[in-house]
C-alpha cells in the first residue's frame, strides 16, 4: 500500500492542467450539449440535500456512450473534476457539483433497450427512472423490486451508485441484489462490463463493489436489472399501537412467527399526523406508532400468513388493525408512508432526513435518546422507519434561513449517527455518505480501513478526479474532525458509554 503521505496526496483534489477556456473549447468539441451560463447552471447546483450547493463550471449532457467516453477521457487528461448526476434526488450531496469541474448529467440516457422475458431481465440506460422500468414491464406481469420512495424521479444509475433500497427490501433486497450486469466507462474513458446475464461471473465480485460507490469508481452507462413476477396476491395490514416500544417488539414477533413480509414499515406519532393531514390515508392519528405490513404470494400463501399475523397483532394488543386486500385500499395505505417525507416537510421550512441503521433490539433505546436530543436542541423530529431491516429515518425539522437552527440541526443529526454506530449500527443504510456524513465515516472506520478505501479508489481512479472529496474522508480530515473511531459491538469495553 502507498505510504501515508502519498496517499494523502493522491486523494487530494486534482489540479486542472489547462485553462477553463481551453477546456471548454475541447469539451464542446466532444459533446454537443454543454451548459456554462450561470442561470442554467443553477438547476444543477445541488441534489436533494439542498443546503449543500455549488455551481459547477460546466454541465455536459451527452447523448451517446461515445460522448460519455470522450468527456470522461478529457477530464482524465486535463485532471478536471467530474461529478455524475442522475436525477439529483440523492439525500447526501453525492451529486453536488465541483466548482471547477464538469457535472455529467446522464438524464438523456432514458431508454429501455431490451426486455428479455425468458431470462427475466431488462437492459436499460442509466437515466431511466426506477418506476419507468416497472411500468414498462407491467403488462408482462413483471416488475423491478427495489422501490425507493423517490421512484418516480430517481434514476437507475443513481440507484446503483447509492445501492438504494425501498420499502420492500427486507424480502427483495437492495439494488445490489437486483442488478445482474453493468456497463461502465472507466476514468480513462474505456468501456467495460462487470457481471453478466448469468447469475455469477469469473473473478472478484466487482459488480458488488461498484454498487454504492457513489460515482467515485466509474460512470454507469448501462444496467441489466433482474425482473420479478408480480405477486399473484397482496395484502397490506395497518396496525396502530399505543407505544413505540410495543410496535418495535411486534416487528420481532412477526419475524419470530416465521413470516417474512414483503414490506414492514413503522411511523411515529408526528409522522402519522403529518401524513394523514397531507394525503388522508386513514391513519389512526391518536396512535403512538403504526406498522404497515405487506404480505405477498399466491392466495393460499397469503391466507395462511395472514392468520399467523393476526394472531401476533392480537397478542400485541394492536388497535386498530386494518386489512387491505383490494388495490385501491392498499395504495391508500402505502400513499401515506410513501409521502411521509414531503408530508413532514410541510411542518417546517426545511428538514434533514437521517439514515442510520441499528439492530432492531436497540429501537426503543435509540428512539428515547433521539427524543432527549430533540429536547436538547429544541428541534422537532419525526421518525419513519424501515422497521424490518432496522433502517431509521429521523426527519429533523428546522429553518435553514436561521443559521443557528441549521447548525443545531446538523449537530443533532451528527449525534444521531454517532448513536447509531455506538448501538452496533451504521451511519447510512441507503442514502449514502456523500458530503453529508463524511465526518461520521471517521467514527465508523479506523485509519487502516479508510486507507484501504482510498487504495480501492486509486485502483479504479488513478488520478482521483471522479467525484473528488466525497464519501471517503481523508485521514487529515479525520484528524481535524478530532473524533475517535468507535468500535461498536463485541470489543472488550462495549459496556462503557461513549458519549
Amino acid at each position, binding site marked *: 500500500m502507498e505510504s501515508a503521505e502519498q496517499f494523502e496526496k493522491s486523494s487530494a483534489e486534482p489540479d486542472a492542467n489547462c485553462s477553463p477556456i481551453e477546456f471548454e473549447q475541447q469539451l464542446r468539441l466532444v459533446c454537443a450539449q454543454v451548459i456554462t451560463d450561470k442561470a442554467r447552471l443553477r438547476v444543477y447546483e445541488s441534489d436533494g440535500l439542498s443546503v449543500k450547493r455549488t455551481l459547477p463550471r460546466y454541465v455536459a449532457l451527452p447523448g451517446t456512450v461515445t460522448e460519455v467516453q470522450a468527456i470522461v477521457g478529457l477530464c482524465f487528461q486535463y485532471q478536471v473534476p467530474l461529478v455524475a448526476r442522475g436525477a439529483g434526488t440523492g439525500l447526501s450531496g453525492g451529486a453536488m457539483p465541483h466548482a471547477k469541474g464538469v457535472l455529467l448529467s446522464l438524464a438523456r440516457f432514458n431508454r429501455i433497450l431490451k426486455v428479455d422475458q425468458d431470462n427475466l431481465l431488462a437492459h436499460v440506460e442509466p437515466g431511466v427512472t426506477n418506476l419507468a422500468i416497472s411500468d414498462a414491464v407491467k403488462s408482462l406481469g413483471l416488475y423491478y423490486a427495489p422501490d425507493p420512495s423517490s421512484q418516480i424521479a430517481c434514476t437507475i444509475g443513481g440507484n446503483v451508485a447509492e445501492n438504494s433500497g425501498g420499502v420492500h427490501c427486507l424480502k427483495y433486497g437492495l439494488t445490489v441484489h437486483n442488478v445482474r450486469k453493468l456497463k461502465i466507462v472507466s476514468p480513462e474513458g474505456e468501456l467495460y462490463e462487470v457481471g453478466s446475464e448469468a447469475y455469477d461471473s469469473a473473478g*472478484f*465480485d*466487482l459488480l458488488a463493489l461498484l454498487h454504492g460507490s457513489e460515482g467515485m469508481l466509474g460512470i454507469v452507462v448501462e444496467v441489466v436489472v433482474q425482473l420479478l413476477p408480480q405477486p399473484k396476491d397482496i395484502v397490506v395490514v395497518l396496525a396502530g399501537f399505543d407505544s413505540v416500544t410495543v410496535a418495535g417488539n411486534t416487528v420481532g414477533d412477526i419475524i419470530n412467527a416465521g413470516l417474512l413480509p414483503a414490506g414492514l414499515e413503522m411511523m411515529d406519532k408526528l409522522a402519522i399526523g403529518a401524513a394523514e393531514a397531507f394525503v388522508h390515508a386513514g391513519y389512526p392519528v391518536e396512535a403512538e406508532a403504526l406498522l404497515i405490513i405487506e404480505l405477498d404470494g399466491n392466495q393460499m400463501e397469503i391466507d*395462511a400468513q395472514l392468520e399467523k399475523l393476526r394472531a401476533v397483532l392480537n397478542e400485541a394488543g394492536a388497535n386498530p388493525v386494518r386489512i387491505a386486500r383490494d388495490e385501491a385500499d392498499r395504495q391508500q395505505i402505502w400513499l401515506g408512508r410513501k409521502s411521509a417525507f414531503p408530508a413532514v416537510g410541510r411542518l417546517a421550512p426545511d428538514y434533514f432526513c437521517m439514515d442510520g441503521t441499528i439492530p432492531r*433490539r436497540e429501537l426503543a433505546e435509540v428512539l428515547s435518546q433521539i427524543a432527549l436530543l430533540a429536547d436538547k436542541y429544541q428541534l422537532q423530529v419525526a421518525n419513519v422507519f424501515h422497521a424490518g431491516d432496522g433502517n431509521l429515518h429521523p426527519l429533523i425539522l428546522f429553518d435553514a434561513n436561521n443559521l443557528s437552527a441549521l447548525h443545531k440541526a446538523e449537530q443533532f443529526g451528527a449525534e444521531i449517527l454517532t448513536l447509531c454506530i455506538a448501538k452496533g449500527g451504521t451511519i*447510512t443504510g441507503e442514502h449514502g455518505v456523500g458530503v453529508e456524513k463524511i465526518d461520521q465515516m471517521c467514527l465508523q472506520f479506523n485509519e487502516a*480501513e479508510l486507507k*484501504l478505501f482510498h487504495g480501492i479508489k486509486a485502483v479504479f481512479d488513478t488520478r482521483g478526479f471522479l467525484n473528488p472529496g466525497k464519501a471517503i474522508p481523508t485521514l487529515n480530515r479525520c484528524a481535524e474532525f478530532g473524533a475517535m473511531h468507535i468500535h461498536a459491538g463485541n470489543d472488550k469495553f462495549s459496556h462503557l458509554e461513549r458519549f
Partner: protein
Amino acid sequence: MTGLTVALTNIIEQIKQAQQPVNIKGGGSKQFLGNDLGHLQPLAVQALNGVVRYEPTELVLQVQAGTPVQDVIELLDTEGQMLAFEPPVFDGQATIGGMVAAGISGSRRPYSGAVRDYILGVDIVTGLGEHLSFGGQVIKNVAGYDVSRLLAGSMGCLGVITEVSFKVLPKPEFEQTQAIELDRSVALQQMFSLARSSTVTACAFYNNQLYIRFSGMLSSVQAEAAEFGGETVGAGFWHSIDNLTLFKAAKNLWRISVAPNSPHFVDEAVLIDWGGAQRWLLDPGFDPREKLTQNGHAVLVWGSQTEDKFQPIEGVPLTLHKGLKKQFDPDALLNPNKMYQAF
C-alpha cells in the same frame, strides 16, 4: 479482537517478515478448487470457531470463520431459520470462511440469491497483517465501499476471513419436490415459466426428468405440487447436486454458468439446474471455456489442468483485479495465484 485474531495477525506479520506465502485452509473441503497451492505452507483457521451472536428476531447471525457450515445450519434449524443460499457442507468439513471465500451457492440460488447477497459484514486480516472490519450486523449498510461482498468468491486472495455476519431467513413451513419425465427442450421451456411461480425454489433437469421443488405454506405447496403432477421425490436429490456427490464419478467436472436460455451445452450437459442457468459437464473431452463467448463462464471444478481453471479475464477488469490484489496483499502472501496465474 479476540485472542485468536491477535494471534492470526501475528502469524501474518511473521509470514510477511519471512516473505513466505501461505495456503489458507479452513476445513480443507474445497482444496480442489482453483490452482493447486499444495506446495505452500498451510495457514489453518479452523480454530476460529464459534457463533459470536445470533439474533433470530433480527435475522442476523455473526459467526467466526472456522465454524463448520453444518453446525451453523443446525443452529439455525433450531429457530426455524436457514442460510437461504443452501451452501454445500461437504461431509461436514466446510467452514464459513471457506464458504464465503469460494462463494458457492446451492439449488436455491436463482430464487433466493447467492452467498454474497446475504453477507452483511466481514472481518479480515489482510496481507499487511491488519485486522479490518467492513459492513456490520445490520441488514442495510452503504457506508464505504462494499468490501464485505467483494470478499465473497475472492478465494482467499484478498485476505484471511476471520468473522462473517449474515442475514438469515425463516425456513419455509413445508417443501416438496416433484419429478416428471420430459423431453429436454420442453423441460427447459417449462423452467422459464416455473421461474414465475413464487413457490418454486429449485428446478433441475437430469436423466430425462424435470425436478421441481415447491416451498412455502403447507396448503399452497401441496396444491401447487398436485397441479404440477409427476411423482414426489426426497430432498436428497438437491443435496447431491449442492454437495457435488452426484458428480463424483467424473474425472473432470465443469460447471457452466450462463443465462437461463443460453444455447451453450444444452445437449452435452449431464445436469441442468438453476432454472437453466447452471450446467454441468462431466468429462466432456474439450475445454468449454473456448466455446463460451460472452455472458457466461465455465470453471473446471475439479480435474487436471495445467493452466488456470477459471474463465480468463482480461482488459480493464484484469487490471482492476491486479490492482485490488496489490491493495489487500501487496507482497502476494495470501493464496497467491489461487484464482489466476496473473495475480
